[in-house]
């Protein structure tokens, strides 16, 4: 299913922090404690889940070349894609303001714990980056745009949670003074990025046709393995 594939791809393979470095500034600034990291991560997931589909609708019906065809045939020749940046960032700023008002009304405790970070999400490159990548990768449907938004958010959340947990522990290690704080965080993030590269092979295969002889071959393999195991036992 392409939804599941896109979901896992956007969490692990195209991870916003480790593959494309989006949202690094708040990632580095907020990751000193796990509790605030969790709050910010949750807010990012929510904002991405709301803004990526909205911007997809904008892109599909207003911005793309030929998108204005629904207004009338003579408008189909217009290409408003140069307005993408302004329209996307305006949507994002508005949605974040709306989210702020709603959160303040329905959950004052969450609003207080997020503090200044909620309005700062509007200028988090992860949010605009999510919409821009959605546009450049030409995601074909609204449902997939939502999956992509939620998946990217969860990927970012995973990254900031991991680095916050590590940074809390590393205060008890003897890091060289000049590397303390920012320097070691960069290097750890680099090592985590190397680790996440291992997910690159995750979604290859599975598109091949299922071979009918596969099961028989699997059974033959099992029997052969057992024979080899038995032979080595008798030699020992």
């Amino acid at each position, binding site marked *: 299913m392409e939804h599941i594939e896109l979901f896992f791809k956007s969490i692990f393979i195209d991870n916003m922090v480790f593959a494309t470095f989006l949202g690094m*500034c708040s990632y580095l600034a907020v990751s000193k404690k796990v509790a605030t990291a969790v709050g910010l991560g949750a807010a990012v997931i929510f904002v991405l889940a709301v803004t990526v589909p909205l911007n997809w609708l904008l892109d599909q019906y207003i911005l793309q070349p030929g998108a204005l065809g629904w207004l009338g045939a003579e408008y189909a020749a217009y290409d408003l894609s140069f307005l993408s940046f302004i329209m996307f*960032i305006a949507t994002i700023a508005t949605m974040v303001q709306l989210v702020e008002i709603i959160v303040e009304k329905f959950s004052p405790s969450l609003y207080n714990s997020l503090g200044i970070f909620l*309005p700062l999400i509007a200028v988090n490159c992860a949010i605009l*980056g999510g919409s821009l990548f959605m546009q450049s990768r030409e995601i074909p449907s609204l449902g997939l745009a939502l999956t992509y938004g939620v998946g990217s958010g969860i990927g970012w959340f995973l990254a900031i949670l991991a680095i916050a947990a590590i940074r809390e522990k590393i205060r008890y290690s003897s890091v060289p003074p*000049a590397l303390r704080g920012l320097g070691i965080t960069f290097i750890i993030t*680099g090592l985590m990025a190397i680790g996440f590269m291992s997910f690159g092979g995750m979604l290859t295969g599975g598109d091949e046709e299922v071979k009918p002889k596969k099961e028989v071959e699997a059974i033959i393999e099992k029997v052969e393995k057992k024979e080899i195991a038995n032979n080595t036992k008798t030699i020992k």
Partner: protein
Amino acid sequence: MGLLSKKDAILLTDPLADNNPITIQVLGICSALAITAELKASIVMAISVMFVLGLGNVVISLMRNIIPSKIRIIVQLIVVATLVIIVDLVLKAFAYELSKTLSVFVGLIITNCIIMGRFEAFALANKPWRSFLDGIGNAVGYGVILIMVGFFRELLGSGTLLGFKVLGDPIEKTGLYAIGYENNGFMLLSPMALIVVGIIIWIQRSRNATLIEEN
């Protein structure tokens, strides 16, 4: 430009090292890591940020007394977005290959924390000429780090600088390749950018002990 007063000259030189936007202020990291696999992309990105930050600082500084405080973020976003659209269209027109390499990161200059950071910290409270100098100073500080990272990543990763093969030809095995040197392709991948910046921070803080963080 005549002689700058001492106060103004500090605006230009501070961000080069002691108040560097990337290594000290921790702003503008995203693009510093993502596009530095090629030196050319780093240089073009640095120039774009210089344009947006310099002009943006001037515009915001000129408007600073008439922007209502409640909508100032939106006004800043609109100013930056307009300047970035200009940069993007110029790049697409005159350097199409490069704009493909930079892809969405030209658009992400809008959310580049350096720009919003300097608007809030400086342009909203200072006169246009000083804001311009501050913008240029920070953009140059940003550019220095970008070029440093791009230099090492491209040199060690593909053996070229700005597209010119400086270490010899890897296919014909001339130059350094004749003695068995191989390009470290890993340098072109994202994790190495993080580690290179970490090392730059390490070197900078070792040389200037006042920058070391308390535990």
